[in-house]
């Protein structure tokens, strides 16, 4: 374990075969699994608009994006598996509600503009959260995050581009963009978690090099990055208290109502039930397919053996 601490202290990488404290392992499993779950649940709100995307180009981009999320899920479950757990078990924990996914996906996508807003705001917030994880002390997670972040930044640009087109389109399109910003702004701010004052786990995660910045720091970074982009789009962040503080060089903004976040985390969001039900249905409907694939693979092995 001394070598563990020494590696952490030297800002080095812990690899799967290295010794590590049980708490470190558990924290990582929980975090990586939750992250993987978020990727696959996150396919739903966007997948909701694939069939209705209003141009073929946008349809292709959206399909590719949702497919990327499945890919992210795959790398992340693989990263978790290096810590000695199985994807199937992690999925069971998701399906039984014992592990969570990001609460942002418990909001509905109501118009095409929401696809823009998710790319711009939700992927934007994810990047702010995840860029520091590319330097996470656990090697496989850090490497997965490098790949994920690269793709997320494409997605973020695509989301912005959707809104940019809407904001330069018809009056109805611009209104749709503004409405999407109104609905997604506060949930996006909550993606950074509770205020530092109420945040549990943070200190230990910092010490272990799993977390690099506090929730509030990251939230501030997100606001500073996003507000000027809203100005470029010509739509208004729905925060009457928002202003730029010249001296501090930061935007001052109203805190979101975190009681909503706590409710959604508890299961009381508009789409919690729907998202989990759809995931469980896909899993259960697919059980016979996975069983068939396993049975077929077994038969092939037997055939090879008996032929040898």
């Amino acid at each position: 374990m001394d070598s563990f601490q020494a590696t952490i202290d030297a800002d080095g990488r812990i690899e799967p075969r290295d010794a590590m404290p049980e708490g470190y392992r558990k924290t990582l499993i929980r975090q990586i699994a939750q992250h993987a779950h978020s990727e696959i649940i996150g396919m739903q709100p966007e997948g909701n608009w694939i069939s209705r995307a209003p141009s073929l180009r946008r349809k292709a981009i959206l399909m590719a994006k949702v497919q990327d999320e499945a890919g992210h899920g795959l790398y992340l479950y693989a990263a978790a598996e290096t810590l000695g757990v199985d994807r199937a078990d992690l999925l069971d924990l998701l399906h039984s509600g014992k592990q969570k996914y990001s609460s942002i996906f418990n909001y509905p996508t109501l118009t095409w503009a929401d696809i823009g807003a998710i790319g711009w705001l939700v992927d934007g917030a994810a990047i702010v959260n995840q860029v520091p994880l590319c330097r996470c002390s656990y090697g496989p997670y850090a490497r997965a995050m490098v790949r994920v972040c690269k793709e997320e930044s494409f997605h973020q640009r695509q989301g912005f581009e959707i809104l940019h087109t809407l904001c330069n389109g018809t009056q109805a399109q611009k209104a749709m963009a503004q409405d999407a910003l109104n609905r997604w702004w506060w949930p996006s701010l909550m993606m950074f978690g509770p205020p530092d004052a109420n945040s549990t786990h943070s200190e230990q995660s910092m010490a272990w090099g799993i977390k690099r910045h506090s929730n509030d720091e990251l939230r501030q970074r997100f606001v500073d990055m996003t507000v000027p982009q809203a100005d470029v789009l010509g739509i208004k962040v729905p925060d009457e208290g928002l202003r730029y503080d010249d001296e501090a060089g930061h935007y001052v903004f109203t805190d979101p109502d975190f009681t909503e976040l706590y409710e959604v985390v508890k299961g009381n969001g508009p789409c919690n039930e729907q998202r989990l039900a759809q995931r469980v249905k896909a899993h259960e409907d697919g059980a016979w397919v996975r069983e068939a694939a396993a049975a077929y693979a077994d038969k092939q092995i037997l055939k090879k053996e008996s032929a040898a």
Partner: protein
Amino acid sequence: MNDLFTYTLRLGDDALIAAQRTAEWIAAAPQLEEDVALGNIGLDQLGQARTLLQYAGQLEGAGRSEDDLAYFRDERDFLNLQLCELPSGDFAHTIARLLYFATYQHLLYEELRGSADETLAGVAGKAVKEVAYHVDHATQWVLRLGDGTEVSHLRMQAGLDAMWPYTAEMFASDELVRRLPVAVDPSKLQDEWSRRVTEVIDESTCTRPTSSYQHSGGREGRHTEHLGYLLAELQHVARSHPGASW
């Protein structure tokens, strides 16, 4: 209407409607790897559709874009095979359709690579590689499901049977393909298609379907009742904002 426009539209509509159905599996597939694989296949189909519809628009010369053709035509103007528009059904139905359709597309694009129409030849040259992967993917699953468990065998057989009455339409020849020199007459693909598909089905331990009744009409815009609902979903946003850009 000019023949080459109509011919290109047929191929483009096949790909478009197939892509729309394939995409239904995204976030609903039996495992994550399959979400990725069906996503790839759907994207390939959509890519083919876009190139073909764009080309059709040029051939028509009336200034219609790929989006005009996809979003602002009515059901009776779509020329796709009925096979492509059928509901996805369970995973075995989807795989059966993919085996039938991709094997057909593969043979078609192989031929079309040699077309004197450079654009079609170019589309086919790119697509033939994509479709080879679709055939391979479908084949692997027909084998796994056909020769997997008892349940999967029955379901695979049911899928093969359900899609079968929509396969003859792929090979129906007509005046248009016979008089258009750059087109492939699909009737000449049928024997090889039948050989390839039969081989896969035999190996899977399923039985090749034999139903004699075969549906037809897609190439003349006569569809199943399913297409209207598919188009309502596909077109609703675009139709709700006529003239808008996205």
